[in-house]
């Protein structure tokens, strides 16, 4: 900074007028955090995926008429939503942001959980608007799938960084869909488990919880020198 940027007040002059008080600092901080994570664009992407879900169900975009094949395209769209959530964990600030106060972990937690909820809502709305066609397992299956996949994405973000974390949910879903068609029944492949299946819901829930925990504590991996 050059000295021309500084001004010394004239002797005997009055002090500069006080800056206006920041109203609602918590909200302001939250908004700035969300803006830094491009959450508005994330919401737009989730809305777009909701529309894609509607189109897929309305026009019967399926790989088959029964069982796993009928669910393949909706599950992939759910994975897309999870990928978008994972990408939103990317922070351009890196270390300076980490070396701050106590609010950052809670902001990360709230953003991840909130976006997961929005994703479920957007996809459910898309599915509902395609009535009479709809998701075979209903909204509960959607919640289970999106939560579990989002958890995978959050875990992937801790390893690869936010921008590449989309590979995690999409890779898992591609493998899971193969398992579905082959009839593998592991609860670890929760997208293929029947509705109201406790094992699948538990696995998805645990993965989601793990992803939230890692995001809260560590956040996404910082890319070096970005």
């Amino acid at each position, binding site marked *: 900074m050059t000295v021309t940027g500084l001004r010394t007040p004239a002797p005997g002059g009055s002090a500069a007028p006080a800056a206006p008080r920041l109203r609602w600092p918590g909200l302001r901080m939250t908004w700035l955090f969300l803006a830094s994570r491009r959450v508005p664009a994330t919401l737009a992407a989730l809305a777009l995926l909701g529309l894609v879900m509607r189109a897929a169900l309305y026009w019967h975009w399926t790989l088959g008429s029964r069982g796993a094949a009928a669910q393949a395209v909706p599950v*992939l769209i759910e*994975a897309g939503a999870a990928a*978008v959530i994972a*990408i939103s964990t990317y922070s351009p600030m890196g270390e300076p942001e980490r070396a701050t106060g106590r609010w950052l972990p809670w902001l990360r937690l709230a953003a991840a959980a909130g976006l997961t909820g929005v994703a479920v809502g957007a996809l459910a709305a898309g599915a509902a608007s395609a009535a009479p066609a709809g998701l075979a397992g209903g909204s509960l299956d959607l919640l289970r799938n999106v939560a579990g996949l989002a958890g995978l994405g959050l875990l992937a973000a801790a390893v690869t960084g936010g*921008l590449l974390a989309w590979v995690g949910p999409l890779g898992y879903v591609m*493998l899971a869909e193969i*398992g579905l068609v082959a009839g593998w029944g592991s609860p670890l492949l929760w997208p293929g488990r029947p509705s109201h299946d406790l094992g699948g819901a538990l696995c998805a829930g645990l993965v989601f919880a793990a992803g939230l925990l890692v995001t809260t504590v560590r956040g996404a991996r910082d890319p070096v020198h970005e």
Partner: protein
Amino acid sequence: MTATQLPARPRAAALRPPSGGTAWRLLRLELRRSPMPWTFPLLAALFAFDPYRTAMGYPAVWTIRASVLPNKMLPDFVVFVVGIAAWVGSRDGRRHTLDLVEMTPRPRWAGQLAAWAATTIWAIVAFLAATAVLYGVTAAQATWGGPPWWPVIVSCAELAALAALGFTAGALFPGRFTAPLAAVGAFVLSLEGFNNAVGRSSAFAVLSPTTYVPANDAGVFYPYPPDVAIDQLMFLAGLTAVVLGVLGLARSSGAGPGLRRGVAVLTAAGTAAALTAVGLAGTARQALPGTSQPPSATAPLSMQAPWVIPALHDAASDQPRPYTPVCQTVAAVPVCIHPAFRIYLPDVAAALGPVLRVVAGLPGAPVRAGQVASGSLVPRSGQVNVGGLPAGEISGTPPAFSYTADQVPARAFAESRGMFITSLQAALVGAFVPAGVSQPATGAPAVPDRRTAPAVAPRVAVQEALLIDVGVPLATQRKQGLIAVQLPSALQAQADIVAQRFAGLPAAARHAWLARHLAALRAGHVTLAQLP
């Protein structure tokens, strides 16, 4: 101390990047630093669990095994090829190097082409490596024929086109969401959007390699018809040129007027190629195997009949491929199969033998059974269809039973040996005693109207009885839908009773009755009450 007085730093060893032409060196840089190879472990896992595992469930027939390349391997690759290509395409935007690359004399488009090419090359390397594994294993197991190369070529062209689409999306929209949205969008559109846009039965559907399914025995009885493959190749090449041309014409490409003119020509040529391919696809029609003649309106072809595109059709592909069938004599009847499917001969013989013994000596009983090309059996009224495909036919003088590779459990890998045998038995029984009512092409059961149902019921009863006689109980017939006729429930119940009664007769008595009344039965002149 001035700069000139500072002690000299030790000279570093001379660093000499390898020499080579500019284009190759740009490409080499991009190949070395491409993120595509990082997806190889995931692609290998997908390959092992999906296309490879599926292919190993198919018979070791080259074209059947090769069908997993566009139908399974490509969809598995689509997500990651498009996503990584979009990632690479958005590199300059994400890394803030736009100013640096836009102010160089070499147009930015040149660097972009190198980056796209590197991504595509790695994707194709992975695809070819997987293909090599699949073809290598098949070579050790196949009993006839050789590897088809058209599916490989077309699949590689589709990978290049998909990579171009993803790359251009990333370059034009270098946002953080472009990669996954492009990946998901490409997967959904390539598999479903295309087919839903043009209709599954539309001729234009042949343009999509991932959704066009050749017959189970494509390339076996007749040479693999290259018409559709050539058209697909033209379409994909045109699409690739158009997409990359759009990138070159963008303001940020750095192309001068001369290069822009060239890119415009490329884009126009690509558009022309793609539109020509679409136009040619519109002329595609199914034909009887070995011909390019369209079917008659009254004899529609099955879905497995090959597609020909007249402008691209080569008459040489209509010449049958010579082969010596492999035969086994059962009940004094030679049962033959194409050597490519010889592994199934024992099962085919085991299936047809009992029925041939039961009908031996009766009017119209086949004196030979043989495999014919898929699509060569024209659906006829009263014929049993399986999944929309004619299941079998008795024709000629002396009568011979013809069946196709559709009965071979190529794609229904949930079908057990037992189911395969019973369905082939039902096909022979259905051809021997046709039910006399047309079945929809979808394979749903035929539903006779009230007027014809009483005439159909006796034939259904005889079919059921013959199957009971060879050891297929009524319950199994129901479960597997072997009798593809749905009578009114009361009439069906009567037919079942009559069938069990008829099957319970001594074999000689049953044989004698059939010998006297078979012609009348087939003509619909026998009632249920008249059956013993």
